[in-house]
């Protein structure tokens, strides 16, 4: 195996739950003397206050520091989680987001005091327009799924405005679960479009399913198999021909920056995941940010408020009668926008294209080097990710889950597993552009070694992981007898 062995045993410290520590009367917060008189709260509405443990600052700091050591992040090591674009999160972006002028500002101050933030948002919208060729952008949605909801609401408003009632939406069966769920939230019935033997949609299938009761189609391109939907232009024509609109799930934009503009291929509305493509940290679950771009057709329906520039001043404008309305209390995840803006300026246009180029190079390299070892679902030039399955390991009684868990022992975060659903036992690898060739080689060699283990000593995989804080967890009993608080 090349390089060094990544996984080994360190000192893993135990740490109890917060309320298993502490003593009444401690406090980890600098509580001041009160400089005004005490006033009792109205007895009718007074309560007892929350029953939290009382802890000193040191106890809190040690608690979370210890917890953090049980976690694996991009800063810990390679994190090839397909569809999630776990690229390096630059530290300079954290600096920008924590500037008091960005982090310590109230959203409802008079506009003259918000010009810097509004300019940043205006310019970020412009960058996203340029990357996709779309006509307008809202930064308001909180995450990818929230962007999908905004986009489908706009499609819904568009049809309504034209006096049409459409009840269905086409969603390919490679789509992420959020796609049909977002469609359903707007009252649409999702209709599945199958993939062909090459892992992409056929024009004929879309033509057969598309009708005047269908609002449009939700397409992820490149799709979740890492393949470019080659028939996209014709598919968009078919959908448009029946009066439908095309939604683009931009989760995989990292593959095509500078190579493809979504507006050019027929997409009417799409979302971005700033927490994927634009390198903002995912935070162990979020917050993300899911801006949505639209062509002229849908501009009137964008959420409000919109950021506009008049002469040299920036304004938040709400006066759009056809708008779908507000998606969040304020303007979206501004702190995430700051990081993404900072990332774009660090990379520049050329740097973003190069990022896509290297992301695609890395995925194809992994695909080539592993395709003898693992069953490759679709053997075509891939984009930013490649999807294998456990078909070759199954005869040894070893599953994708076992291989993923064994990767943990070797010090890698496993790829996405069992998604997309069209590939049974899927192992979806997205290396991103920020990994070195050495780490990628090490990852490949490790997976090859695991394939040998699968044959020779499958129990190693069945027992994995053994070096983590805990071993495999009983998820069935967690769901059967849920204990969600202590």
């Amino acid at each position: 195996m090349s390089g060094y062995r990544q996984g080994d045993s360190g000192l893993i410290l135990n740490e109890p739950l917060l309320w298993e520590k502490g003593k009444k009367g401690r406090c980890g917060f600098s509580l001041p003397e009160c400089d005004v008189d005490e006033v009792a709260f109205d007895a009718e509405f007074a309560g007892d206050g929350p029953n939290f443990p009382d802890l000193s600052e040191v106890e809190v700091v040690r608690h979370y520091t210890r917890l953090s050591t049980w976690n694996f992040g991009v800063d810990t090591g390679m994190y090839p989680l397909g569809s999630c674009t776990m690229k390096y999160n630059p530290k300079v972006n954290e600096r920008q987001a924590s500037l008091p002028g960005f982090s310590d500002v109230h959203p409802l101050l008079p506009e003259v005091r918000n010009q810097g933030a509004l300019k940043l948002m205006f310019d970020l919208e412009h960058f996203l327009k340029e990357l996709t060729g779309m006509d307008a952008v809202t930064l308001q949605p909180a995450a990818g799924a929230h962007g999908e909801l905004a986009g489908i609401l706009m499609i819904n408003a568009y049809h309504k405005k034209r006096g049409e009632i459409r009840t269905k939406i086409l969603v390919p069966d490679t789509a992420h679960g959020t796609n049909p769920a977002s469609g359903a939230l707007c009252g649409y019935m999702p209709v599945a479009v199958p993939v062909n033997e090459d892992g992409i949609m056929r024009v004929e299938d879309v033509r057969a399913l598309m009708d005047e009761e269908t609002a449009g189609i939700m397409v992820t391109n490149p799709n979740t198999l890492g393949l470019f939907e080659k028939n996209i232009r014709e598919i968009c024509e078919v959908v448009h021909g029946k009066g439908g609109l095309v939604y683009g799930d931009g989760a995989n934009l990292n593959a095509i920056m500078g190579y493809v503009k979504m507006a050019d291929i027929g997409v009417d509305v799409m979302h971005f995941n700033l927490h994927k493509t634009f390198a903002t940290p995912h935070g162990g679950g979020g917050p993300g940010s899911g801006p949505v771009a639209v062509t002229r057709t849908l501009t009137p329906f964008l959420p409000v408020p919109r950021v506009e520039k008049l002469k040299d001043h920036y304004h938040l404008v709400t006066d759009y009668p056809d708008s779908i309305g507000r998606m969040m209390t304020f303007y979206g995840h501004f702190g995430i926008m700051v990081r993404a803006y900072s990332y774009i300026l660090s990379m520049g246009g050329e740097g973003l294209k190069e990022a896509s180029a290297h992301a695609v190079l890395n995925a194809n390299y992994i695909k080539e080097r592993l395709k003898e070892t693992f069953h490759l679902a679709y053997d075509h030039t891939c984009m930013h990710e490649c999807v294998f399955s456990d078909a070759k390991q199954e005869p040894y009684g070893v599953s994708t889950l076992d291989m993923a868990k064994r990767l943990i022992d070797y010090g890698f975060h496993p790829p996405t597993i069992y998604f997309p659903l069209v590939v049974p036992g899927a192992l979806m690898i997205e290396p991103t552009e920020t990994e070195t060739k050495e780490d990628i080689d090490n990852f490949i060699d490790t997976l090859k070694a695991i394939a040998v283990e699968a044959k020779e000593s499958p129990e190693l995989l069945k027992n994995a992981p053994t070096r983590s804080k805990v071993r495999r967890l009983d998820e069935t009993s967690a769901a059967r007898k849920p204990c969600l608080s202590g």
Partner: protein
Amino acid sequence: MRYLPHTPEDIKEMLEVIGVKTVDALFEAIPESCRSKEPLNLPRAMSEWDLNAHMDALAATMAPSSEYRVFIGAGSYNHYIPSSVPYLLSRSEFSTAYTPYQPEISQGTLQGIYEFQTMVTRLLGMDVATASHYDGATALSEALLMAVRKTKKKRVAVSSLCHPFHREVIRTYLGPAGIEVVEVPYGEDGRTDLAAVGAMDDVAAVAVQSPNFFGVVEDLASFAQVIHAKKGLMIASFTESIAWGLVKNPGSQGVDIVAGDGQSLGIPKAFGGPGLGLLASSKALMRQLPGRLVGTTTDLDGKRGFVLTLAAREQHIRREKATSNICSNNGLCALNAAMYMASLGGTGFKRLAQINHNKAEYLKRKLMDAGVKITFASATFNEFVVKFPEGFEKTYDRLLSRMIVAGLPLGRFYPELAGHYLLCVTETLSKIDMDQLVKEVTA
């Protein structure tokens, strides 16, 4: 580029393995007709120090609460954040992880969120809390959708004293799904009109914010009684979490679902986001909850551990039948809130709420003494409505130029309250700040 590690030799070697000559050749997998011909018209890459200077200049045009005396809350509150909290939060094992799909190497996040869920249930007096939602407005919209699913009724009642922006988001979410949203008027005491709810039929739920948009504490128990008699669900919302240090929690008042904003819990205001959506319910509604839940279990050795659970509600399993489309939530903000609540402790939380209350009451009294009319006499927490003298706009601008923001003008949200302002005080404003405000507004 410092984030792109490949050397020309690396690229050459990799291309040889793949069997193509150039990286661009890989993009021939994209039909020619789909490929862009023009280079991106975006700025050139900036050096780190040029970028810092550029960002500093943008940030310098803003009005941070460290420099201004901001007497506005209305959904975003200026509370002191202990230095230890952002420090701990910046540990990149937390911040650079994805959703904990692999629990064995995500126990830090999972235990942290489990503790968060627990503290939220204790704060609100509820049985179950989710691992977070985007913000208060989206959490409240989802709470109403839960009620519609549970009761199978297509109409909901929402107090006109729920945050105006929350109500707008509710309309965005519920309108296209064909759910009717009826607003409940408010009375002269600055409280939601209970009798109006009593007169409504066939409603899935009533949502009442407490403390409401005017800062007035609502009698949630009475609303719960009325709506339960109509076989609807009682939903409470809030924007100021610190209130629960003093105010009777919703769970003890018969509330079924609580949805609110957790930004007050140590999360920077950040021009409105990211904040934190809190969503909690009774046990009976657990399986209707949207989004992630963390639960305890044991590992193969019988050791305690934590996992994402009850996933059969979620989009990655149920697709269009899921309880919501949410995937990424605001996990790091939830951890942020947990760190903050742990730092305060129960004793500290109560004391902090009391200090906030003392200060707001001080300002209220001083303004009254100076002849300013307090619009609603009811009990409030941190925020209250005042009527400033005619022509106050000029004073407002003068104060702004002196770095004082004298509240939020209410006319935009409630036309009948033109000339009225919503004021907010937290522990971060001193007696001197308040005395100065009183002096200036009555000058």
